[in-house]
């Protein structure tokens, strides 16, 4: 038998302090103030760090490195098992103390709203942030902002999750070890001192695109202090083509803005202007929807789209022409020639009819036509579009040119190339990377990592410990835009002040504070930096009042960029060398509609939201046309290897109806290795085959290397006609899910949505009909306005504390989002028509779910809501089986994260957090209804129309969703329901839904109608 170790007492008491060791440490800490909390820290004993780890878990590594999502799920399961045990553990007493001094304006339980702006690339998305007792909980659009109009996009909606992301970088590190801001400033000071001597010739700063005026002024100051230094802006999804196109057309950088409300004819050349992330998306969505209202009759706008990969934008088109990306230019030239804007080349024979009709239409609407090119198209296409817009008299009407919104426009790829060259030639001594992740997303041919490793001192400031952080000396944890002061400009140039909603969760430094440390005191607060910049620049007199007004409104009034008179030179635009070759397989690189360039890869909401059109989530499938897939012998889930100039990457195939033949689309942003627990090892990284000379399109060889890849595709079936079903099967069109007509037919017969459709009357029930005497809630969703951008889904998820379930559970059919946007195709696989149908709970008056619940957990309210009583639910799932719309969602497992403290802060306190075994579904945001009703009762009045808005309605950039009281004949929703376009989904079932749809009206060109599938 072994004896007890005699050293036991030593093990309990931390190791003895070596005085010599401490003195040695002190001697080494020469420069700058070094503080220590206790002698143990100074001696850097293990015991101290152990203590630190336990005392301040915030600073501890929250998760062991390398834990995969699978491990995460496992641990989640394990924690569930433990959660069962906690019931047996006595909980510690937690005294709840009221405020001694009540902070001004805070009423517990009443949210406050603050206007701010979300910087996105160079542009600001105006936002209104809901805050509960100092915790931001929801981000929405700022309805007063001229560029936002109240809508929001998926990125703004999901940004709240980014802020609370427990995987965010939480500490400053030096060589991967914890360090301090003062430690960093000391090092930086040393490095800068030596740079000062050489005028900063060894100093390089690499940042994201700068749109902030304060940051721009800091850039100038850095330039002044270090005249030889260079500041490179690089984003993988940069707008180099747009800039170069403007240069080509006008000889200068200009910002192009479209006035869609004036446009009768809209033509896009691969321009995805109705998807989140396109500058001005919110504004365009709203104005596009306004012009597509069929009640405008003949004034309804017509939309042509020429595109290289199916997008939700072109899904709205009356005429969509799928062509390979490299062929867009040829078409653009043909159209330009037709409208008298130079160009010259003839269109391919199969496109000639389309071009002829289009040109005729464009010319017939001079001054009210607009051509929108896509960021991924080469400069020549942009220049052609400018020339066309000019020739069509669009300039000044539907198109407005202004000075650039970007603070310092730059040819970003060229600038990055130069930087890499300089590093390789040893010219760079100090590299500061801010808000960029070049190790992951720089063009593959730059071999950025190898170059960067040569820089003697590398510093990175970022929100996450990403791929780049692994290779820098210093990593500074940044702040989220909800934690910092700053400013930004919307796409129209309107300035916004970014204000913090919460103190930085992890003591991060904002970018402003980071850059100021180069030129001033490293302790300058972000507030002072921004305020100081604005002093004297605010329009109007009293600065304090103006500053406060700007903060209150969320923007500095009347600062939109004024129109600028420029003239496109037209003709003689040199053809771009885009590698277009009729035979070779074309590869096009696109941003992911949800996780953008990959910077949002760790956002579970975005990952799980089905992408527009494909409705895939958690993956970046390689899109290919079904035709080409057949020819190549490829099927869904086959894995192909894409070889671009010797660089290879694998990816799984998804045959996508409407994709042009002989072309594949790959989406950037996936395959990250250091994104965090959610984003790591999801999908495939196509930056590895993306080079600087072919950033958007190139040619490649593809070969099949595997098969059986599983996709998470929450939508069961996308064809509304029976293309995928055995011949002779009952046609799905008999279900009248999508009702549509052309504008001509609609004008002739406005009642088209109800003809030949069985619609049982209210007397067709055994029960007496309930009289809704007070309020009677209802909703309409205009399928003509809906652009399929999926913002409503993320908004609903944020508002209603909906958990993320992960790819595996989604594949099993257990996604939890209460709202879904069904995407239906009609017509062949080559160029089908596309319809979007958002489906929340239909809140049936004769709800099939209610009668079958054995415990009465789903019941009808006096206002006509189909309420779900979570506490009463025992989880038989009968209600879901009996729901014809399948809008109910079941917690098959413990999907909700009850442990992570950040998520506890993030949740909407007004909405129950559901646990395992409970059914849930859309409630029409009952918490908002209740809040509105209480307010109205207090003021002894009726609820006003528009006072209660649902989260999806609030988020919808197109304003497609309208909610209100049906008992009020003057409410918007009641008026819409009275329209003939209004119809109920599956109305023959006599469920009598409160949610109804406005039928689709398309406006095809009669010249093209016969040949095109409508």
């Amino acid at each position: 038998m072994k004896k007890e170790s005699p050293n036991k007492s030593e093990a309990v008491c931390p190791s003895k302090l070596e005085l010599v060791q401490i003195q040695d440490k002190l001697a080494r800490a020469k420069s700058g103030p070094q503080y220590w909390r206790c002698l143990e820290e100074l001696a850097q004993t293990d015991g101290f760090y152990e203590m630190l780890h336990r005392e301040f878990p915030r600073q501890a590594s929250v998760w062991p490195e390398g834990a995969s999502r699978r491990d995460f799920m496992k641990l989640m399961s394990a924690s569930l098992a433990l959660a069962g045990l906690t019931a047996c553990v006595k909980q510690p007493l937690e005294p709840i103390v009221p405020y001694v001094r009540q902070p001004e304006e805070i009423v517990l339980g009443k949210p406050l709203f603050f206007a701010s702006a979300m910087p996105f690339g160079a542009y600001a998305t105006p936002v209104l942030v809901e805050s509960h007792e100092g915790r931001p909980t929801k981000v929405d659009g700022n309805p007063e902002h001229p560029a936002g109009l109240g809508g929001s996009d998926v990125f703004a909606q999901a940004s709240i999750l980014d802020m609370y992301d427990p995987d965010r970088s939480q500490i400053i590190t030096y060589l991967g070890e914890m360090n301090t801001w003062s430690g960093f400033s000391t090092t930086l000071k040393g490095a800068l001192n030596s740079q000062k001597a050489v005028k900063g010739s060894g100093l390089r700063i690499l940042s994201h695109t700068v749109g902030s005026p304060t940051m721009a002024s800091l850039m100038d100051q850095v330039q002044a202090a270090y005249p030889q230094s260079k500041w490179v802006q690089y984003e993988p999804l940069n707008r180099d083509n747009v800039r170069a196109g403007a240069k080509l057309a006008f000889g200068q950088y200009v910002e192009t803005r479209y006035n869609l409300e004036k446009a009768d004819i809209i033509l896009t050349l691969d321009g995805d202007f109705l998807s989140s992330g396109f500058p001005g998306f919110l504004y365009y969505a709203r104005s596009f929807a306004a012009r597509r209202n069929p009640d405008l009759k003949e004034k309804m706008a017509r939309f042509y789209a020429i595109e290289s990969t199916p997008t939700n934008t072109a899904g709205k088109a009356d005429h969509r022409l799928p062509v390979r990306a490299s062929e867009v230019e040829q078409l653009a030239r043909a159209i330009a020639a037709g409208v008298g804007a130079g160009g010259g080349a003839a269109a391919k024979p199969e496109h000639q009819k389309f071009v002829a009709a289009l040109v005729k239409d464009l010319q017939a609407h001079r001054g009210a036509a607009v051509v929108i090119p896509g960021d991924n198209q080469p400069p020549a296409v942009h220049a052609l579009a400018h020339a066309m817009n000019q020739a069509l008299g669009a300039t000044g009407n539907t198109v407005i040119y202004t000075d650039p919104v970007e603070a310092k426009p730059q040819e970003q790829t060229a600038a990055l190339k130069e930087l890499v060259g300089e590093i390789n030639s040893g010219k760079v001594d100090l590299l500061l990377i801010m808000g960029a992740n070049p190790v992951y997303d720089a063009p593959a041919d730059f071999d950025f990592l190898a170059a960067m490793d040569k820089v003697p001192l590398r510093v990175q400031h970022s929100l996450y410990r990403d791929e780049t952080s692994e290779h820098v000396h210093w990593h500074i944890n940044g702040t989220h835009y909800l934690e910092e002061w700053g400013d930004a400009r919307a796409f129209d140039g309107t300035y916004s002040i970014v204000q913090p909603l919460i103190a930085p969760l992890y003591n991060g430094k904002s970018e402003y504070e980071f850059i100021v440390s180069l030129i001033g005191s490293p302790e300058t607060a972000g507030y002072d930096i921004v305020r100081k910049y604005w002093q004297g620049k605010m329009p109007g007199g009293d600065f304090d009042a103006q500053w406060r007004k700007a903060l209150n409104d969320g923007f500095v009034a009347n600062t939109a960029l004024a129109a600028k008179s420029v003239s496109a030179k037209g003709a003689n635009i040199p053809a771009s060398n885009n590698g277009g070759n009729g035979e070779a397989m074309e590869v096009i690189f696109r941003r992911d509609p949800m996780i953008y360039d990959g910077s949002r890869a760790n956002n579970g909401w975005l990952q799980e939201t089905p992408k527009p059109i494909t409705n895939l989530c958690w993956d970046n499938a390689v899109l290919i046309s079904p035709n080409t897939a057949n020819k190549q012998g490829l099927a869904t889930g086959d894995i192909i290897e894409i070889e671009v100039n010797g660089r290879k990457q694998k990816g799984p195939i998804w045959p996508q109806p409407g994709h042009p033949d002989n072309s594949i689309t790959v989406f950037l942003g996936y395959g990250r290795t250091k994104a965090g627990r959610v984003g790591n090892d999801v999908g495939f990284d196509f930056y590895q085959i993306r080079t600087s000379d072919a950033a958007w399109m190139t040619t490649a060889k593809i070969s099949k290397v595997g098969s059986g890849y599983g996709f998470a595709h929450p939508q069961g079936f996308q064809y509304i006609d029976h293309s995928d079903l055995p011949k002779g099967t009952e046609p799905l069109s008999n279900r009248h899910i999508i009702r549509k007509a052309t504008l001509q037919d609609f004008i002739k017969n406005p009642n088209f949505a109800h003809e030949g459709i069985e619609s049982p009357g209210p007397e067709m029930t055994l029960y007496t009909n309930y009289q809704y005497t007070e309020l009677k809630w209802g909703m309409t969703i205009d399928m003509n306005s809906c652009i399929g951008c999926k913002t409503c889904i993320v908004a609903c998820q944020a508002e209603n504390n909906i958990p993320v379930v992960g790819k595996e559970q989604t594949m099993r059919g257990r996604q939890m989002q209460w709202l879904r946007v069904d995407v239906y195709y009609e017509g062949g696989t080559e160029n089908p028509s596309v319809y979007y149908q958002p489906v929340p709970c239909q809140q049936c008056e004769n709800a099939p779910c209610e009668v079958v619940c054995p415990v009465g957990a789903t019941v009808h309210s006096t206002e006509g809501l189909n309420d779900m009583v979570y506490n009463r639910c025992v989880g038989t799932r009968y209600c879901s089986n009996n729901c014809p719309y399948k809008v109910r969602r079941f917690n098959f497992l413990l999907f909700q994260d009850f442990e992570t403290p950040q998520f506890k802060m993030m949740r909407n306190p007004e909405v129950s957090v559901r646990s395992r075994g409970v059914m849930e579904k859309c409630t029409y945001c009952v918490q908002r209804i209740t809040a509105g009703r209480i307010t109205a009762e207090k003021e002894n009045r009726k609820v006003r129309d528009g006072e209660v808005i649902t989260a999806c309605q609030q988020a919808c950039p197109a304003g497609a969703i309208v909610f209100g009281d049906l008992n009020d004949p003057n409410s918007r929703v009641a008026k819409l329901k009275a329209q003939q376009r209004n119809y109920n989904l599956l109305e023959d079932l006599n469920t009598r839904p409160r949610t109804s749809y406005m039928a689709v009206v398309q406006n095809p060109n009669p010249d093209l109608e016969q040949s095109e599938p409508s």
Partner: protein
Amino acid sequence: MQQGPEENTVLMDVPWPDEPPVLGPGQTFGSMTDTIADAVLTRPIGLGWLVGLAIGMGLVAILMAAVTYLFLIGVGIWGINVPVGWGFAIINFVWWIGIGHAGTLISAILLLLKQSWRNSINRFAEAMTLFAVACAGMFPLLHMGRPWLAYWMFPYPSSMGVWPQFRSPLVWDVFAVSTYATISAVFWYVGLVPDFATMREKASHPLTKKVYGMLGLGWRGSARHWKRYEALYILLAGIATPLVLSVHTVVSFDFAISIVPGWHTTIFPPYFVAGAIYSGFAMVLVLAIPIRHFYHLESMITMRHLQNAAKIMLATGLIVAYGYFFEAFMAFYSGSTYERFMMQNRWFGPYAVFYWTLILFNLVIPQVLWVPKIRANTRWLFLISLVILVGMWLERFIIIVTSLSRDFLPSSWGHYVATRWDYAVFFGTIGFFTAAIFIFIRIMPAISIFEMRTLLPEAEVKAK
């Protein structure tokens, strides 16, 4: 007609000229009692029995593990999803409940109809019912998202004043199944009382004597006992008889009340009841054939029994076939696009192979029972019974899964694939059933001793 019984006994039991008798020749009161009782009391425990029990118990162990994991993690360990909210659990529930029905039919309805041939098979058929209902009863509990709240399904006086929602067929189910389980158990036990007394007399070990004595409730076989006993037994049979029809009718309401295409049909109640009896008799044969073989009970469970069971299967099988036909006919006759699609989807959709297997197993193969030679062959009967059991399971699979997986909105269509935990629970209940049957035949008289004795001509004398 010499061998036939006397006129005041079971008139309906007049066999056809070449039909085998209900009772083998050469039996007396004593020999009959010994044959049945010795199987429990003196027969040594054989290797075959041990192996059988071990298999059953092994599966029970898997069931326990699966249920533990299920309660810990949630029903998400199964393959169910939205739209297919019900999977194996409900399929198995309906299947097991159906199997139970044959037991009640044999013991109650055939008793009332004075079909005395039932006497040799009613005991284990009732045991089968009881165990099948036990298996079935597990599933509604297991399939709940929050099984610890299952008692909310019962109308108990809650302090919150909330009641179950009586419009829901699931609540009807609770009453139907719990009544069924109670009546079946009481009926079975009451039937066993005189036999427990016999066992008490025959047992030699004092402990065995004591246990059987207690179970026998002091039965002495007095005329007064018998008088009351007969009255109670007939009364219970009377109560149990409507249950044969009502329980599966109510179970079928789980589907028929809903609006799901493929569920919402008025033919379901009779079709479900017939299906239940169909599969129940198949299970009776699957049990009877090995039992009579291994326990040498051929003279009590004669070919007559097996053939009668086969005929009932043939008859109920045809009713089920009628159900299938009219399900399809009504789908098209209704003019409802959803119903039509549902039927086409069963025929040609992703689960078509299961549908056609079901048609083969439940419709085509059982038709060989028309051939007397096959009815007289125990191996064939055993095999066909197994086929029917699988077929009936598939029928429930088709009804539940294909209907749910593709209902109204194509966007919500889904696919259901069972996981290993689905199979673990299913086979676990089969194990439970097997183990229970194995234990039952070792500790209780598997054939009713006193009822068998009434089949002897001597019994008639007594009756006079």
